[in-house]
């Protein structure tokens, strides 16, 4: 399969463990359901990125699922995070939003869905660690503007609309600066705070 998917690893790095250019995200070890939904969204235009969209256009769902399964099963070690360029106040704000959220603005903690160690849960919720700061910034920004969407109810879009640009920047910098734990916890501290279309039912 790796040989068939050199088209992916050209940008996403060897075995899909992210490239050195600091933008293309790691795909190795992400949950299969999540990866499949992303591949399908790129192909079908819900996630706009021309390069991905054209590359995947001639592929059917069955192959997209196999591609997703292939990268999901690659459990590879993570490199330590690069030193953060952000100031202490920004990082503190990012940490607080991640771990506590902001009840006043109805923003749940990231951990509530992405797991206690932020390493993802189940087949549909991706981890948030081991990703480049530019990628995180771009994705949270895209959720805010509506350029990135998921199945209704689109929980990430709702949350992102409540975030300010400063929140997005703080979250991206703090998350990108965290090492990936050797022992991930695939449970949330409590029940899910809201309904998410992308976590329900068959993809």
């Amino acid at each position, binding site marked *: 399969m790796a040989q068939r998917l050199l*088209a992916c690893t*050209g*940008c996403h790095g060897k075995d899909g463990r992210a490239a050195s250019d600091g933008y293309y995200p790691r795909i190795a070890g992400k949950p299969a359901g999540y990866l499949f939904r992303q591949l399908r969204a790129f192909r*079908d235009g819900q996630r706009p990125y021309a*390069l991905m*969209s054209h590359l995947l256009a*001639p*592929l059917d769902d069955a192959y997209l699922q196999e591609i997703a399964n292939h990268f999901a099963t690659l459990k590879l070690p993570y490199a330590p995070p690069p030193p953060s360029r952000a100031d202490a106040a920004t990082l503190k704000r990012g940490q607080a939003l991640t771990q506590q959220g902001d009840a006043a603005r109805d923003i749940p903690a990231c951990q509530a869905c992405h797991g206690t160690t932020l390493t993802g849960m189940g087949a549909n919720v991706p981890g948030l660690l081991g990703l480049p700061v530019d990628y995180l910034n771009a994705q949270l920004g895209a959720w805010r503007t509506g350029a990135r969407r998921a199945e209704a109810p689109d929980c990430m879009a709702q949350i992102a609309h409540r975030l300010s640009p400063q929140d997005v920047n703080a979250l991206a910098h703090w998350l990108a600066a965290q090492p990936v734990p050797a022992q991930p916890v695939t449970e949330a501290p409590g029940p899910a705070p809201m309904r998410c279309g992308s976590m329900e039912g068959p993809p």
Partner: protein
Amino acid sequence: MTRLLAGLAALLLALAAAVWWLNVRGDGDLSVTPSDGNDPTLIERGAYLARAGNCQDCHTPRGAAPYSGGRGIPTPFGTVYSSNLTPDAQTGIGAWTAAEFRRALHNGRSRDGRLLYPAFPYDSYTRISAEDADALFAFLRSLPAVARPNRPHALRFPYDTQLALAIWRALYFQPGRFAPQAAQSAAWNRGAYLVQGLGHCSACHARRNALGAMRDPAALAGGLIPLQNWYAPGLAGQPTPAVAALLQRGVSDSVALLGPMAEVVLHSTQHLRPPDLSAMAMHLQSLPGAEAPRNRADTPTSAQLKRGAGIYEDRCALCHGDDGQGRSRAYVPLAGNRAVLRDPAANLVQVVLGGAFPASTAGNPRPFGMPPFATELSDEDVAAVLSYIRNAWGNRAAAVQPLDVQRWRSSVRP
């Protein structure tokens, strides 16, 4: 003076009458009621024919409900948006009769008589038999209705006027059903019917003039798809079994169908019955003429070749081999490959910039893909590596210029 004016007026009237007549000739009798549209056999046949025509591809925006319309087709004259073909009474074809549907296919006119833009390839569909048109209509009527109003086209003046369209049609559109050639076999005629009619191969594979009209569409001599900038090669004279297998699997040992054609394989040709594919291939093989002779005047410089060789070794040789020999059933050979030597080299540029997968098909469910290099290689790099590939291992073809790469880099895909 009065006589001159009267003469001019008479001439204009005569011209208007000619344009009018040329636009309504061939219109069928709208009062005809075709057979029962709810017949399941008819619907099934229509579903197959819709596959052969790849109707769904243009009539479905990415990710939307099938046949609900609204996909933009980029043309040099602006964007044409496909229409809703589901049986919704207000926004689709729910209120249409089978006779009105026949007239749309055969004569490019909407239910209200409005002239349709030939981005809807009625210059090919006019060849479709009345029975097949009715089967297609029955199939479309069996789909779930989707309420989605049609999006107005975004065409520039004067192309957005019905008058311009009427004149274009008077000049270039000739209605007429497919007429079998008695001297040819039934299979050849079936192939010609599918290629010239439903398959509308000429929409991409024929040359076009400045007004977008096809020149000698039946010859399928090859042409650059406007704005998308993929070159749809000439189809004459290829061996029948190889072409039939290629349309079914999407790849062979030496050829991979990529870009827009990979989508045609995914949605259309892989689903066609082998006898139909063979018939189409047989017709194509019989076409006279070969591709235009290659322009060899433009030889690459030694500096370009040296730069290209370095890039090839770093980025390409791992899969395509040190000698461009490729790898059987995975990576096509580049040495001696017609697609590599063809002019213009547009497809090579597209594949290097955007990467490519062939279609996933029953015969090739897990195709090997090529990575995109758009973010890594400059226009000069792409030109150099392609010029090298086109002149290594016995290959001999014109150099690719950075300007070509720059031009094709900004292509539009629907």
